[in-house]
């Protein structure tokens, strides 16, 4: 899937002066399988980029297209299908269900388009060292633990692009490496790409492209 941000300028960011290589106001292509780092300081619109790209915000000038189709023409059912099969997201505010357990959060997402068995999901938790949290309510987890649950949830679907909005902000280096390795493996396995937004840290990963805000 090819995503194009054609001279996008979000309304809340229109009054700010952006650099000449910023994605805002320029022509940007996110090509199939590309691993992209989006590096920017606070308030430059990293989350706005995430929400605009996946159709959760429409307050912008310019055009966002998926395979040459303007996303503004998509209907709610089209978006549901895209979010089930094409694009997966780790939101900055994680968007977990606090009243459900870790297991329920993951199984609910997995039920939409089952890609893993319960055992496989539990194994992923084990890999990120939170296997004992399966029965625990999400609201009782630390932010770092919640981030790892959100990352695993994003894996529980087929996708062509994974958007990660500051997914390691509450993780130590060791856990960040574990999470990234898992993400990278999953993307390679599917031939998918990702966009990772960070606050200046490249986490010593290798990327195909780096975008600026």
């Amino acid at each position, binding site marked *: 899937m090819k995503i194009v941000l054609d001279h996008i300028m979000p309304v809340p960011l229109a009054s700010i002066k952006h650099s000449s290589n910023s994605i805002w106001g320029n022509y940007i292509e996110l090509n199939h399988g590309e691993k992209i780092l989006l590096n920017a300081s606070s308030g430059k619109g990293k989350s706005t980029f995430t929400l605009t790209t996946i159709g*959760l915000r429409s307050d912008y000038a310019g055009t966002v297209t998926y395979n040459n189709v303007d996303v503004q023409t998509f209907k*709610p*059912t089209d*978006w*549901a*299908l895209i*979010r*089930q099969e094409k694009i997966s*997201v780790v*939101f900055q505010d994680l*968007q*977990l*269900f606090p*009243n*459900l357990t870790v297991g*329920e959060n993951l*199984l*609910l*997402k997995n*039920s*939409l*388009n089952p890609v893993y068995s319960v055992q496989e999901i539990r194994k992923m938790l084990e890999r990120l060292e939170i296997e004992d949290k399966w029965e625990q309510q999400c609201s009782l987890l630390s932010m770092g633990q919640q981030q790892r649950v959100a990352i695993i*949830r994003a894996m529980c*679907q087929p996708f062509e692009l994974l958007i990660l909005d500051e997914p390691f902000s509450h993780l130590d280096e060791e856990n960040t490496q574990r999470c990234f390795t898992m993400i990278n493996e999953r993307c390679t396995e599917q031939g998918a790409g990702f966009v990772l937004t960070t606050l200046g840290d490249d986490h010593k990963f290798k990327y195909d492209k780096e975008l600026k805000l």
Partner: protein
Amino acid sequence: MLNKLLYKNQDKKQLVIAIIGAFMGITFLITSIHYLIKVNDFGKGSDILGPNTIIVQKKVTNSSSLNMTKTDFSENEIKKIKAEPFIQDVQPVISNNFDVSFETADPMVPRFRSDVFIQTVDQKFLDVKSTKWHWKEGDKFVPIIMPRDFLVMLNTFMSSSGIPQISDDLAMDIKFKFTLKGETDKEWVDARIIGFTNEVSSILVPESFMEYGNAKYTSGKEKKITQIMISGKESEFGLVEDLLKKRGLESKNAQMVVGRLKSVVGTLFLVVLGISIIAVFVSGLVLIQYMQLLMSRNAYEVRTLLRIGFFPQVVIKSFFLYFVKIFGIVSSLGLLVFFVFKYFLDTMFESGGLYIDTQISMIALISLAGTYLLFVLASYRTAKNGIFKQY
């Protein structure tokens, strides 16, 4: 899991109140509609006269016996009665203006002959098929509706003559004939009974037969209208009764008692029906409002479900089915309690001598289905609007 996510942490107090209200409303709604229909149908078909119909005449007093007051109805009086809002129709009862006698004309039955009084009323007051109730010159026989008292009299005569008595059905097979007499002419016309009435004391004949007799064998005297038929509106019989009192009119007591009873019971059920409609409407609104509240309390959950890829229709369906199931259970319970009520009320009516039809009224069931359908539609619209608001 979706159910746990959306409905587990809700304050159910408001829901319980709405459910109780809806249950009571539904129960009384179906009960009142059922009995309103059954009470209005009471007496239908038992007589050839239509429901809520009475024959009235002016009260005979000493002054009218002395010809000081009139006992006939003027056109103006009929018009005034007809203009009352609770009156459906008023028509004069036309009597014969010629001599007529009635006799058996069947070899199986002993001869019985009597001078009689015949009358005709507008067909719309009669509960009889129009194909049976017509006559024209040259027809084989004239259809007649007989006062039941006449059959009793005939049976008394048969019994005293040592002949077996006859039933209603058998009486309808017996051949009779009228003898119409004028100043110089005489004519015989065969007659057949097609029904009986308790409400009229004379033999009823089709209008065309009366016109024929009155035109051909008239005695020449002007015929006065001394009886009229009044058809009152459902549940407003009390007003008809007041009118009769005010105008010094009278009717057969049995007709009045049934009319009064139907009117009182009908009004009672109408009041219950009104209250039930309000109760169902209000509780339905509370349920719908509760659905909106639940959706707004779950705004984050709904939004997140849509963000992670749930189809809006799946979330709409979840809310919609949750409330439709609740209302379905409430309606079923209401229907069940209605059957219990019905058992006790039918027994109560029967022990009081009111033999109303005990079959379930289809209209009551259709009303319940209609109420349910309305709620289903309202739930769907509310769920759809609520979910798309979070989109």
